[in-house]
């Protein structure tokens, strides 16, 4: 889950707060919150702002800073490469489940990953819930290699 997806999720969990309401409560400009949400590149360089947001949402700062590395474009790059080369991949979801298979297609919101054995029914994973990913032959996760054990 990228930082952008996480902010979206947190907003939804808190009952659909608007960026202005968050800005009022946390002191981070609404524009910055909006940018973090819409941009596909790595966002949220401002640690101070992230601390404020973490305090406002009642989550740990690490939650935010870790997700900062899992930005959309990085996932897209990974998906693109593995789809082109047809390499089997493993996706870890936020629920700590793991899905493996080859990427059939991906779009803005979802990834179709098909198990290697049969190719009839792909599993459509919503991109927002992918927390980490790796090649099947590579034991190290892309975002947090140390958690692999």
């Amino acid at each position, binding site marked *: 889950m990228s930082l952008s997806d996480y902010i979206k999720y947190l907003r*939804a969990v808190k009952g*659909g707060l608007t960026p202005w309401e968050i800005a009022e409560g946390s002191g981070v400009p609404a524009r910055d919150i909006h940018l973090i949400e819409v941009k596909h590149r790595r966002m949220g360089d401002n640690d101070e702002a992230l601390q404020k947001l973490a305090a406002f949402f009642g989550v740990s700062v690490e939650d935010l800073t870790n997700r900062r590395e899992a930005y959309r474009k990085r996932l897209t790059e990974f998906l693109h490469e593995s789809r082109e080369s047809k390499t089997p991949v493993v996706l870890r979801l936020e*629920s700590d489940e793991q899905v493996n298979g080859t990427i059939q297609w991906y779009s803005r*919101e979802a990834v179709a990953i098909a198990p290697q*054995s049969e190719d009839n029914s792909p599993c459509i994973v919503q991109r927002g819930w992918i927390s980490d990913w790796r090649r099947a032959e590579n034991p190290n996760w892309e975002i947090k290699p140390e958690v692999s054990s």
Partner: protein
Amino acid sequence: MNMLRSIREKKGLTVSQLAARASIPARVLSEYEDGLQPIPLPHAKLIAKALWVPIEDLMPPAGSVPPLPQQTSSVPYQPQQMIAVVPPPAVQAPPAAPSAVSAQAMPQPPSAISYERPRTYGPTEKDPKEHERRSADNGRGGEGRTTRPSSRPVPPPPGPISEGQMEELLRLTTRLEIDQEQLEKRIGKSLSMLTKPEAKEWIKRVRAMADEVAPTRKVHFGQWPEGREDREAAYLREQQDANAPFVFTLFNGERFNGVITDFTPYTITINHAATGEEVVLRKLAIVYYRRTANGDTQAGIVSDTDNIVEAAPKKAARPRASTTKTANSDKTTEVAAPLAEEHSHQPVDTGLDSDRVGEPVTPEKDNMDEDRGV
């Protein structure tokens, strides 16, 4: 009679109207009509387009005698040769071979299509001496080639291959993984012997070859499919048409199975297999979904998630999913608990106007208490 004039009058246009349509000055048009000027091909095309007639119609009927030019013009009126698309039969030409006398008297006829730039401005009369000079030329040389005005410079011969072209050719050879010699063999001469236009042509050809054989590896982010096509929507539409049973797993581990009845960019509506109710699932709450084997629409937890390798125990603290069930009778009943009980806000999607569901019931405070006498 002049074809241009008769067509124009048949169409009920004035000279100035036609001039406006064809974007040719009216004066030039009337000169064409009077036969003072031959109609050059570019102008003939414009006029034909403006009059909505085929270009051949602008030719006078075969056998008609072209009116004699009243004024001295650089090129005599030869309408058939000027704008003929198909060379007309030689009606005007005498059957006998042109004698030396006639060749001297008349300038050499121009080629079938005049490449002379159409005249739009400037005086109608040209230097009368030019005519004499030209016919004198013809008489002496008899070479032809008199239609090109003498003022037009002869284009210089093409120069040798430029540095940049050479560079590009060499770059393309490396992309094609061939030697310079192989390319030279293919071209038929050494690269440095090529002229500029030849090099241009070869670069075009070799580039097409290279694009076919070894496409560039460069990837533009904006061109990735995720930005252009919504594959998920296409997939969902396909599966909706196929009436395929699906199992949806939400972020809190809840599973729904049923047939997709509708979807939007943010929601998927399914017909719940167990209860027969329509359930609207937020995509935000869906983690993954997959098609189940046909006929397997049993309610409850589906076990055939073969590519889920390990499922961690669900966190107890996870809030419940936000789902809205819509009974078939369009009655909306909220069945799922609020996303987070510890917050006073309601889930996002309890209704259409869900933006303000968390609005406090008590009126907002203002500073008007003093005025009210409180």
